[in-house]
């Protein structure tokens, strides 16, 4: 029994330097999740601001419509389908699957972040905007320095959840042939026929990363909460 465990461990990680496959997969997962998160936040913030600005002023009609269609389409279709379309149709000339994964997941995440942020911005009392504008600040400065900081503080837990789901969702990037953590486990299994070690160990890795991420978010939340003692 004990021998079997040792044997499984050796076969999974040590034989033929297979731990390198896991490391490589882990690196791809982290890379994709990290860049996609940044793309998602940028797109999400821009879309949210456009939509709120449109609602407040009635300007930017066309941009607002584009943003609305974007969120509807992204939220209404599975992320796998979006990735396949991005890879096989939009970027058909490119084989940079990792890069396309970043873009695909970023676009996907952007729609969710946008809706979260829009809710967060709308939840900030209109009096804050009025106070900012009444001091002579431009609508841009008021949004950037007065409304957004409060909105972000309110939506941070929801955005954190979004990051966490994004990290876990990247496990389907194998559809594009990228060797991420999950795909690495499958590759190893196809050689060793041992399913326990690869699957359990990658589950633990995901768990550890998510746990670390939650911890960081909690620290950030606590820092931002210093004004409501």
């Amino acid at each position, binding site marked *: 029994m004990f021998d079997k465990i040792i044997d499984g461990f050796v076969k999974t990680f040590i034989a033929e330097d297979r731990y390198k496959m896991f490391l490589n997969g882990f690196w791809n997962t982290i890379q994709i999740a990290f860049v996609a998160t940044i793309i998602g936040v940028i797109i999400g913030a821009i879309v949210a601001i456009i939509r709120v600005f449109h609602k407040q002023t009635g300007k930017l009609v066309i941009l607002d419509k584009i943003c609305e269609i974007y969120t509807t389409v992204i939220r209404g279709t599975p992320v796998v389908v979006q990735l396949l379309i991005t890879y096989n149709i939009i970027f058909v000339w490119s084989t940079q699957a990792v890069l396309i994964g970043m873009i695909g997941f970023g676009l996907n995440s952007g729609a969710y972040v946008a809706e979260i942020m829009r809710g967060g911005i709308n939840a900030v009392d209109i009096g*804050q905007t*009025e106070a900012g*504008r*009444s*001091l*002579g600040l431009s609508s841009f400065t008021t949004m950037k320095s*007065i409304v957004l900081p409060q909105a972000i503080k309110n939506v941070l837990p929801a955005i954190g959840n979004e990051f966490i789901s994004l990290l876990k969702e990247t496990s389907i990037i194998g559809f594009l042939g990228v060797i991420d953590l999950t795909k690495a486990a499958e590759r190893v299994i196809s050689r060793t026929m041992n399913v326990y070690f690869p699957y359990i160990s990658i589950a633990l890795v995901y768990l550890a990363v998510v746990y670390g991420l939650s911890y960081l978010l909690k620290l950030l939340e606590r820092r931002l909460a210093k004004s*409501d*003692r």
Partner: protein
Amino acid sequence: MTDNKVIIDVKGLYKTFDGKKMILQGINCQINKGEKIVIIGPSGGGKSTFLRCLNLLEKPTYGEIWVNGKLITPVDPYLHFDVIKASLTYGKMFEKKRAENPIISDEDLSNEIIAEIKENDLLNEKREGRAFKDLVKDIYLNNYIQIDLARQKMGMVFQHFNLFPHMTVKENITFAPVSLKLKTPEEAAKRADELLERVGLLEKADAYPSQLSGGQKQRIAIVRALAMDPEVMLFDEPTSALDPEMVGEVLDLIKQLASEGMTMIVVTHEMGFAREVAERVLFISEGLILEEAPPEQFFNSPKNPRLVQFLQKVL
């Protein structure tokens, strides 16, 4: 356009919300430098809307507002006879009426037509021809001031304070002057200290708004407006959200400002304050200024029946 004693000039101000409810229906009002105006009236009568129109937190539907001789609203063609006369509608009506009535003098005819156009809202701004359009544009370009610039000189104090909760008291006060590059951070900080000292809240400089009482918050909100060195202060029911024991400290500060010669317009329910501080009291109800008079006359011998009724209820 206006003599330089007048700081705010409101002409023919109308405001409807969503084209339905008429909140303001034709307000004309001039406010002089250094004058203390108190506005009272029943809820829903339009007094807050009027105040908020003065710095364009609400956009007037019709009418013009001039601040320091500068236009902050779009041009309202109905307020300019020469603009009406330049319109195609006027041209057509003039010819038609002239044919009907050859004897009437040009001037009388013109007045008649202008009155009719104003009465029936006959101008369609998009279809009044080049001359009309050019004239409107001309008036606008020669007189307008960008609203953010005008607002820098008009402090506003809100019923619910609206301090920025994510900034300390000091940051609340210095943010706008520094961000607008009106003051260096050092100058702004020094001014903030002076003002805080004056209202007795210097020790709260590094506190956050959530750590202050309502009265303290409102005094900080006043200081925040004062840090912009405004020429006029607008107060929108500054004590209505306060616990009774905190009303006094806020009113005292406003009185102090008044005694220093600050121009101010105060919407309030505090009749005692109105009596004491106001130089002119306006009664706004049903979207109109139904009465305006010095406080003595306003409270002791009101003329408008609606005001008489109102005073009976509140005094």
